């Protein structure tokens, strides 16, 4: 595929890859960055990784390897092996969330493009510049940055930035899986536990648990704000669906594939069908993360607050008036 933008997503294992329709996507990140015990994680099953890379290539997609977000010393040999396989198979890039892994890639695999993941804590332009010196070709800024800050980073560093467009925003990573404490009570064992679509709820608050990983309960949704993202020059977008099923991946990908094409054509219209498809997968609601400089669980926009989804008592006036006024909605 050769489009003016890249829509990508993450897939943890071969089973998920084979069940996923890659149609809407231009690129795929292979591997689960949260847990070594995740079922048949590409990062641990290197023959699967090899086959997965070939499958994506055969489908005409770019393919990237992601790596563990919080690797200890004893992870490093396996990470090196996985990178070596990825290099042999000619992946388009390797994503590193850990600066030690960045150093390994830079020193030991000089031909491989490096993408810096969201867990790498790139908060500042100077931080991004340091990583550019270590060979970074693309950076996902830390999730806490506002769009204003991200736009400034793009302008000041000249680096390609990847934007989390939709899906579950990572909120944290642990070395401990609390779900294991419930194996006996629930009659279910690892690695099935973390695939049960589990939400931590406390009143109106919600977070999704994937064991060692904590994700936003609400789905980040930037559908309304695509014109701003496109106008700012961003072209690499992620649907964060590592914890979601293939139907989610397909449906959300299709919406954004269409939306990006519309947006780049210069006449952006939100089609009513898009909201319905997004709504069907947003179990807890939608949010904008930190893009507008406020609590990550809030949604800022003109359309959803007028009739779709839910708004929080903490919601403030829409910040995107300039953008919203450019939108024409067909409901």
């Amino acid at each position, binding site marked *: 595929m050769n489009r003016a933008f890249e829509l990508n997503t993450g897939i943890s294992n071969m089973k998920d890859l084979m069940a996923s329709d890659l149609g809407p996507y231009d690129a795929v990140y292979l591997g689960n960055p949260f847990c070594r015990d995740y079922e048949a994680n590409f990062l641990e099953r290197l023959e699967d990784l090899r086959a997965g890379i070939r499958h994506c290539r055969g489908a005409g997609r770019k393919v990237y390897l992601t790596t563990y977000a*919080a*690797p*200890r*010393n004893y*992870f*490093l040999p396996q990470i090196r092996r996985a990178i070596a396989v990825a290099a042999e198979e000619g992946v388009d890039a390797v994503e590193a969330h*850990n*600066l*030690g892994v960045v*150093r390994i890639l830079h020193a030991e695999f000089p031909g491989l493009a490096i993408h810096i993941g969201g867990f790498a*804590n790139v*908060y*500042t*332009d*100077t*931080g*991004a510049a*340091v*990583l550019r010196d*270590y060979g970074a070709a693309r950076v996902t800024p*830390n*999730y*806490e940055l*506002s769009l*204003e*800050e991200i736009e*400034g980073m793009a302008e*000041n560093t000249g680096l390609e930035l990847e934007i989390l467009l939709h899906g579950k*925003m*990572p*909120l*944290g*990573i*642990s*070395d*401990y899986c*609390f779900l294991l404490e419930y194996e006996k009570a*629930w009659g279910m064992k690892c690695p099935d536990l973390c695939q*049960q*679509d*589990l*939400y*931590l*709820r*406390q009143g109106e*608050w919600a*977070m999704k*648990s994937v064991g060692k990983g*904590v994700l936003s309960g609400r789905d980040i949704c930037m559908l309304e704000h695509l014109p701003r993202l496109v106008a700012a020059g961003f072209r690499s977008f992620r649907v964060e669906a590592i914890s979601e099923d293939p139907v989610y991946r397909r449906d959300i990908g299709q919406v954004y594939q269409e939306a990006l094409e519309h947006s780049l054509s210069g006449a952006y219209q939100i089609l009513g069908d898009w909201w319905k498809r997004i709504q069907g997968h947003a179990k*807890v609601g939608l949010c904008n*993360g*930190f893009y*507008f*400089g*406020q*609590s*990550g669980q809030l949604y800022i926009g003109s359309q959803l607050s007028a009739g779709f989804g839910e708004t929080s*008592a*903490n919601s*403030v006036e829409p910040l995107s008036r300039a953008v919203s006024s450019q939108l024409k909605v067909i409901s």
Partner: protein
Amino acid sequence: MVELLAPAGSIEMVEATVANGANALYVGPKGWSRRRDAYELSDEALREAVRIAHARGVKVRAAVNTHPTSQELPRLLRRMEVWVRDGIDGVILSDVGVMAAVHRTFPDLTIHASIGANILNDEDICFYREIGVRQVVADTKLSLKELRSRREIEVGVEVLIHANKCYTYLGKCWMSPYHRLERGQDESGKDLFKGSPNRGGLDYRVCLEAWSLLRGNHDRWADRVALKNDAFFLLEDVPHLIDMGVHTLKIQGREYAVDLIGRMIKFYRDLIDTYSADPHDFDLGPWNTRLGQIQAQRDLERAKGTLDLFQEAREAVQGCQR
């Protein structure tokens, strides 16, 4: 001799930690550290802290252990110039960009990589060493075995002997601002991010809320699930850490009462000195009892602090600035 590093959230705490035997202390310049501003020091107070500490041969580090905005970096470097001129001996940083910029601007200033930098493996340490870091704070989840390998690398290692052990890796957690973030600016124009510990605001400890666990939207699997976030003291490990040649033993707690921090410092001063004087005849028994009393006071203070944070986390955000 291993260095005992103490928190100093006020001038009173500076005096207490110096009097009780700290070798070094760290202070948070107002607006720039990973704590409430109530536990940070103005420039004037920081100068006073340096004066008090240096008079007793105690070093002072400025904790600038947050991720500022990119636009703030020039302002930070100007502030840093003041703190360096006022005599700080080192600086504790989290952000790689800030580290690189500070190292370029103040090449002789010792940079300590904060626990917020989340340094987990030897390659990580080498990375930070290459950008100018001289000492790293070990993550609280690392084992003694993992810490041992650090000896092979030319870098100082700092181990927390009193701190919180979060469910998540510290520095890689956005649970608190996801639920409540309040942006603002202080009187000097410094950006503030209340609710975001990585960006210098307080942490609402939402991980400790009594969460219910549901499959999908309705299938309730468990109640009162807490994502563990325990405060700890190291005791049995301290002799091993000293034997390993760890450079610094660090106590967190700028937010605790001055007398409690004073007791902690005195406890560890005595422990380090006693063990170092006669490692072969060292008996942990009495130390356990003494630490138990300190721990009881700490637990009370922490429980109250957590409840206050829960309440504050539910408050509506009054204003919002982009």
